[in-house]
C-alpha cells in the first residue's frame, strides 16, 4: 500500500464527489427540495463569493475565519509549549506520569462543551474563554501522544547516546525528542482536529465573531445558503490544516518510512 503512487485512487474519490455534486444539483434544480432546506450548488457558490465580498452579521468572511483561526492558533501555541514538555516528562519520569496521568484521564473524556459553562462563569464570554477551552481540548491528546512516543523509544538508542557521553538533557532533546517526534506530530494532527471542531462548537454558543457564530446566526435567520456555505468553509479549513500538518510530518518524520 505504501508503495502505490499517490493519487492512484484519485479517480474513485473524484467519481464519488462528482456524483454527490450531480445529485445535489439534480434534486435542487428540479425543485424536489426547496431552497429553504437545501440551496443548489450554484447558489452556494454565489453565496461564498458574496460572503467574501460583503460579509455577514457585521464581519467579512475573512474576519470570521481569521477570528476562528487566531483562537485555534493561540491555543495550539500554548499547547505545544506546555503539552509537549509535560508529555516528555510523563514519558521519562514515572513519578510525573503518576501525578499527571489521572488528572488528564479524568477530564479528557468529558466533552469540552460540558465544561464550557464553567469556564464562562470563571472567565466571562471573551476570547480567553474560547482559547482556554480549545487549549484544554488539545492538551490531553498532545500530552498523551508525546508520553507514549517517549516510552516507545528504543532503549538501545538511549544507551548508545549515553556511551558516547550524552548528558541527561542531551538524551532528552537529541535522542528522545526526535525519536518521539513522529508520534508527537500524529498527536498534533489529531489534537488540531479536536481543537477545530471544539472551537466551532464553542462559537455556536458564545461568540460575536467566528465561523461557528456566522453559521449559528444564519441558521437563526433561516439564511440556509450561508449555513451551508459556512459549513463548507469550516470543512475546507480543517482539510487545509490537516494537509499542512501531513506535510510537516513528511518533512520532519519522513525517516519512519523505512523503520
Amino acid at each position, binding site marked *: 500500500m505504501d508503495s502505490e503512487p499517490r493519487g492512484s485512487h484519485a479517480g474513485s474519490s473524484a467519481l464519488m464527489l462528482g456524483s454527490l455534486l450531480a445529485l445535489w444539483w439534480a434534486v435542487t434544480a428540479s425543485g424536489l427540495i426547496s431552497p429553504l432546506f437545501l440551496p443548489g450548488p450554484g447558489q452556494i457558490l454565489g453565496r461564498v463569493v458574496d460572503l467574501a465580498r460583503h460579509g455577514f452579521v457585521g464581519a467579512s468572511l475573512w474576519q470570521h475565519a481569521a477570528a476562528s483561526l487566531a483562537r485555534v492558533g493561540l491555543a495550539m501555541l500554548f499547547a505545544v509549549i506546555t503539552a509537549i514538555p509535560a508529555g516528555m516528562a510523563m514519558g521519562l519520569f514515572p513519578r510525573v506520569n503518576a501525578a499527571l496521568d489521572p488528572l488528564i484521564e479524568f477530564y479528557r473524556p468529558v466533552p469540552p462543551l460540558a465544561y464550557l459553562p464553567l469556564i464562562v462563569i470563571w472567565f466571562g464570554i471573551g476570547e480567553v474563554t474560547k482559547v482556554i477551552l480549545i487549549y484544554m481540548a488539545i492538551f490531553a491528546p498532545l500530552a498523551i501522544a508525546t508520553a507514549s512516543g517517549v516510552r516507545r523509544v*528504543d532503549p*538501545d*538508542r538511549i*544507551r*548508545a*547516546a*549515553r*556511551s*558516547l*557521553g*550524552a*548528558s541527561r538533557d*542531551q538524551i532528552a532533546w*537529541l*535522542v528522545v525528542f*526526535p*525519536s518521539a*517526534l513522529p508520534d508527537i506530530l500524529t498527536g498534533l494532527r489529531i489534537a488540531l482536529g479536536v481543537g477545530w471542531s471544539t472551537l466551532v462548537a464553542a462559537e455556536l454558543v458564545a461568540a460575536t465573531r467566528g465561523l461557528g457564530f456566522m453559521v449559528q446566526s444564519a441558521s437563526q435567520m433561516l439564511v440556509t445558503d450561508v449555513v451551508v456555505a459556512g459549513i463548507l468553509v469550516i470543512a475546507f479549513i480543517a482539510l487545509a490544516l490537516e494537509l499542512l500538518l501531513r506535510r510537516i510530518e513528511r518533512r520532519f*518524520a519522513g*525517516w*519512519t*518510512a*523505512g*523503520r
Partner: protein
Amino acid sequence: MAVLSAKGAGVVYRSARGPVEALSPVTLDVGQGEIVIALGASGCGKSTLLNMFAGFVAPTSGQIVVDDRPVTGPGPDRAVVFQDDALMPWLSALENVAFGLRLRGMGKAERLERARALLDEVGLGAFGGHRISEMSGGMRQRVGLARALAVKPDFLLMDEPLGALDELNRERMQVLLLQVWQATGKGIFLITHSIEEALFLATELVLLSPRPGRIVRRYHPGFARRFLAGEPIRSVRSDPDFLAMREELTLAILASEEEAEAHGQ
C-alpha cells in the same frame, strides 16, 4: 595502556518472580590491543557482562574497573556497538558518525570532516549523505562502528555486532574489524554465537557455562595475528589447527551444557 577488568563481578537481577542470577562472579581483563571474545549459550549472561563493562548495569558483587578506577556508568572511553545498530534514523550516516562529537560541542565543520574520514575508513565514503533507512544491515553496522570510533574510545564493546549479517558480509566485517584493530590498537570485547568467528578474531576466548554464566574455559587462539601478518583468510580458516580447535570448542560447549542439565535435574 589501559585495562578494563571485571573483578569477581556478578549480577543478580531482581525480577517479579524473585532474584535471577544472570552471571556468576567473573574475573576477566580486556587490555588495549586485545580482542576478548565471550562465547556461550543463549541466556548465559554475555550481554549482562558487556553491559557491566559498558556501565549500563552495576555489578551486584565485585566490581568493574579501568586500571584502578571503578566504572560507575557509561562513558566514551568504552564505546558500544549494538546488534540492532541503535543509530539515529533521522540523521544521515555522516551525522550519525559525528553524533558523539556533537555531544562534546565540537563545531559542525570539524566534526563532519572527522566523520567523513571515519566513513572512508569503514568503506562507506560515498554514503555519507544517505539515510539510515536506505542502508543495508551490513552498512548500518559499519556506521555504528565508525560512530563508536569517532569518540576515540580505549575500548570497543560489541554485543553480537555481526549476528544479523549473511556469511559473506560477516566475513568482510570481521576483516574490517581486524584492520581497525590493527590500526588503532583498541581493546575489544565482543560477544558472538559463532564458534568460527570467535576463533578467527579472538586473542583471548572465554567460554561461559549456561545460566548463571561463569567462565569454564579460556583459550588463546592466534589466528587473527596470522591473518594480519599476511596469511590468506581461507588458508587460516581451513588450517588443521583452526579446525581442531573448532571441534574442541564444540565439544566443550556440549559438555558444559550437559553438565548444566545434569545440575538442573
